[in-house]
């Protein structure tokens, strides 16, 4: 594990992964978009607007997934004081925030034709909005503190406290029976979505994941370089 604490090692690993991730992204995104836009049937009730799903659902999954990445990195940092973990959280958070915003926006756009309103204060939307604010808070702490490391640890504490929100998002549709769709893909009794829709959905989900990996790795490399600069600066101050 501590082998990857070495930034040079990490950079080498990242460089090996990046081309693969780019290839997967290109392939799945093109294929997924083709399937989603042309090759999948319109919904019986919703018509063409159902195509928003192929962005909305993967984005919502990624929003939660990124948060778990941030939380995992935070846990690693708190327990083992692992410098790369610190940066991993910092690198993942803005991506997660972007996906969360995307899920919120596509959800709102989808809501207008289906429910007749952009926004409703139901449990799921609310808890996703809270998730968005948690991301903002996490990034704000990073920005607001004097020293990187201290800021990162403070942000990590917040991220861990905020994990409570993830099960709330997941189960909100069951706890409060509201407008939003209950789980129809990841269910104990198997998916209830039609296979014609399931397949493009998964392709898009893979594309989103690949996109995450690419941006994440680039951001990590950036953060490592920034870190080097600030170390240089500090050693200058200390003479």
């Amino acid at each position, binding site marked *: 594990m501590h082998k990857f604490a070495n930034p040079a090692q990490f950079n080498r690993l990242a460089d090996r992964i990046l081309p693969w991730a780019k290839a997967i992204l290109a392939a799945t995104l093109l294929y997924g978009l083709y399937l989603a836009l042309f090759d999948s049937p319109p919904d019986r009730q919703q018509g063409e607007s159902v195509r928003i799903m192929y962005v909305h659902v993967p984005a919502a999954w990624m929003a939660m997934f990124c948060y778990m990445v941030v939380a995992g990195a935070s846990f690693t940092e708190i327990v083992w004081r692992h410098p790369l973990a610190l940066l991993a959280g910092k690198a993942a958070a803005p991506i997660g925030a972007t996906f969360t915003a995307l899920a919120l926006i596509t959800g709102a756009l989808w809501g207008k034709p289906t429910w007749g309103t952009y926004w409703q204060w139901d449990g799921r939307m609310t808890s996703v909005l809270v998730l968005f604010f948690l991301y903002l808070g996490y990034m704000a702490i990073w920005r607001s503190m004097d020293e990187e490391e201290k800021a990162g640890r403070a942000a990590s504490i917040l991220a861990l406290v905020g994990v409570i929100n993830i099960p709330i998002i997941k189960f909100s549709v069951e706890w409060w029976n509201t407008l939003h769709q209950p789980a129809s893909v990841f269910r104990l009794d198997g998916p209830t979505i039609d296979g014609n829709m399931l397949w493009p959905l998964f392709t898009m989900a893979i594309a989103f994941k690949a996109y995450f990996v690419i941006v994440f790795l680039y951001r990590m490399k950036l953060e490592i370089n920034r870190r080097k600069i600030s170390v240089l600066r500090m050693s200058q101050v*200390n*003479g």
Partner: protein
Amino acid sequence: MVFEKLFFEVNPGELLFLRGRNGSGKSTLLRVVAGFLPVRAGTLTYGEEAWGRGDAALSEALVYAGHDNALKPVLTLRENLQELSRLMTGGLLAENRIAEAAEIFNLGRLLDQPVRYFSSGQRHRSNLMRFACLDRPLWLMDEPTVGLDAENRQALASLMKNHLAAGGMILAATHDPIGAEGREIDMRDFQPTATLGEEWL
């Protein structure tokens, strides 16, 4: 920052001065010893035992006075001292104990004044009174002479000497001569290095 090749010990009855240029890490080192900053490598031992951050044993062994005077401006000097004592021991100080401590720094007259009216030197002396009020073996003093007039520097010196004579230990960072005898540690001898290892450079 990290210190390299830093090794020293303080024995009962001993006074250790930290000397060094501005920014050489004196305050940082004191805060490490007080347990505020983590020890990245190496160990800190007290008697036989290793000291961790936030150990109860640690808090019952030392008195620390840093750059800031930990005084509440709305409380009087006496109330400030009583709050400190209650925080450190759970009990109040005897009145005559306070009066004696105030005499040392010539603050008797000000005991029942709210601290917000004090001049900078008076505040600093009020903060130094904690050393006379709490019975703890190890004193950590960060620039204790700052802003003191000649008379009060002597008072400080004799307070420190008494503590040493009673078997206490003192670690003091200062630029001024204090007037008490002690060994010196020159911070120049320990190269501070950057917080992160070489691989980041």
